[in-house]
């Protein structure tokens, strides 16, 4: 079996080569192309941003205002919807559950994943290839195939409908991707450094924690962000394996809130709930976007 490695394109995140240089050698057709391109891109940006802005704006309106006019600005910065969503609809509790579950799963998966990837990438032992391919298989199979048996595994362990059960499942599903991503990352680190550490008397553990981990920091950071986004957005696993309302995570709580009341739904609060769900990930993204964009190609093209 050949391992497909789309030759490690280390897409350096070079800043776009645009910039106001001399414009005198721009031809007429360039201007046309430029205008058309900008129009297309601006149009797409609008399609992306407008629904978000509209949702944000509507989240400050009362239900009567929402039905009165689609576009009218809210009468003021009215946070009643947020209070309703946070307390009455229980979004606050779900938010907390999400933070606990995603936070714990993230820490566990990063520690396990980086150690696992390091060992697989750096040491050859009986069965190391087999483990690697098993991980790969875990990455490709759809979750749906596993959801029914998983339900009973958790039930037998007494972890069904509990937060720890959910954390374990999250870890299990995020692990293959983490190992996969970091595996290729650890392979690119120079072997000489490991040897140098060994000569200086560092054991395997020390080499890993004090030499290799700091060197792999960029890779670890991007995989952590990816896992955060992926787990925060997870929906199917909690829906199937976590049916106790008290333990709902945010995405579940949001779905429940939306379906629970049908047309009698408190629309303002629903919009507010959507904003509460979207805001943390957008903030995380905007802060770390450079890191993330640079690693998209590295992480997914393996």
């Amino acid at each position, binding site marked *: 079996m050949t391992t*497909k490695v789309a030759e490690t394109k280390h897409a350096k995140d070079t800043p776009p*080569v*645009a910039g106001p240089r001399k414009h005198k050698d721009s031809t007429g057709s360039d201007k046309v192309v430029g205008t058309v*391109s900008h129009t297309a891109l601006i149009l797409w940006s609008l399609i*992306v941003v407008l629904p978000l802005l509209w949702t944000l704006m509507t989240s400050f309106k009362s239900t009567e205002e929402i039905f009165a006019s689609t576009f009218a600005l809210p009468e003021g910065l009215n946070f009643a919807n947020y209070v309703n969503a946070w307390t009455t609809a229980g979004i606050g509790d779900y938010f907390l559950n999400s933070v606990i579950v995603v936070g714990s799963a993230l820490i566990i998966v990063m520690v396990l994943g980086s150690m696992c990837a390091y060992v697989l990438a750096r040491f050859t032992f009986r069965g190391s290839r087999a483990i690697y391919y098993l991980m790969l298989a875990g990455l490709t199979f759809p979750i749906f195939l596993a959801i029914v048996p998983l339900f009973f595994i958790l039930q037998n362990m007494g972890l069904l409908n509990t937060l720890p059960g959910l954390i374990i499942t999250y870890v299990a599903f995020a692990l293959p991707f983490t190992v996969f991503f970091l595996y290729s990352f650890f392979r690119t680190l120079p072997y000489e450094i490991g040897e140098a550490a060994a000569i200086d008397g560092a054991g395997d553990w020390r080499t890993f924690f004090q030499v290799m981990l700091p060197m792999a920091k960029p890779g670890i950071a991007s995989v952590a962000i990816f896992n955060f986004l992926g787990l925060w957005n997870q929906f199917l696993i909690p829906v*199937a394996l976590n049916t106790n309302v008290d333990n709902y995570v945010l995405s579940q709580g949001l779905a429940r809130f939306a379906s629970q009341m049908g047309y009698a739904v408190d629309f303002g609060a629903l919009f507010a709930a959507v904003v509460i769900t979207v805001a943390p990930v957008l903030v995380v993204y905007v802060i770390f976007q450079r890191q993330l964009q640079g690693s998209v190609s590295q992480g997914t093209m393996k």
Partner: protein
Amino acid sequence: MSPFIQAFYYSMTDWSGFTPVMNFIGIDNYVRLFQDDTFVKSLGNNVVLVIVLPIVTIILSLILATLVTVGGRSKGQISGLKHAGFYRVVSFFPYVIPAIAIGLMWRQVFAPNGLVNGALTGLGLDQFINYAWLGEVATAMPVSMFVIIWGFVGFYMVLFVAAIKGIPAEIYEAARLDGAGRFRTAVSVTIPMIRDNVQTAYIYMGILALDAFVYMEAMNPGGGPAFSTIVMPQVLLDTAFSQGQFGRASAMGVILALVTLTFAGLVFLINSLTGGTKKDVRL
């Protein structure tokens, strides 16, 4: 891995999940599934999704990525557009938003009193006042597909931007010296050079399309008008956890996995038949 193997075994039994009795009934579950109209409908919808979504998403993101990276001046160094970074960041927004939130948000945007109808009536198209985009058989599926595409174009755009930047600038300059125009360059240089990336993207997107569950659940709970948007995972979860028919549900899981594998296999096959670049490196 063991859940996957267990799923395969369960799919051959009449297990209801809550009794210890589990009789081996061979392929009976599969036969019955294909006599079930709802399931066949959902399978059909999944096939439509897996064909349409990747094609549209990838074409759209390729165009946007090309514009961003090589849309600049045709003299001097190959350059991207101004503000390319801004477009990339904004386009990536939907990818980080939880799918459930995307679904709910767009459900409101396409609601009878939502943003879309507001805009259309504002333009004087009064027939759209109170039109329920997701409530009509004719528009429910196209609208749902649009929303899923909206969610993923930015991600693939960033992916292709990175791939295009990996192409040596000399190749573009050579093409330019040979007199190739922009369109010719995009078709004859860019696409062949990032062919493997496109293939991988296609497979990823296909798998995501099979997993359209969250979006569908958010926008059209219950399968949409006349089951026009129902997808297999919805039937699966209902069969398993509402009706307690775990054997049949596992059979659906197996069928879904087979469709996925067939799809991935087809993409690989087509790519190699049409002369895909084989630059694989053996570890």
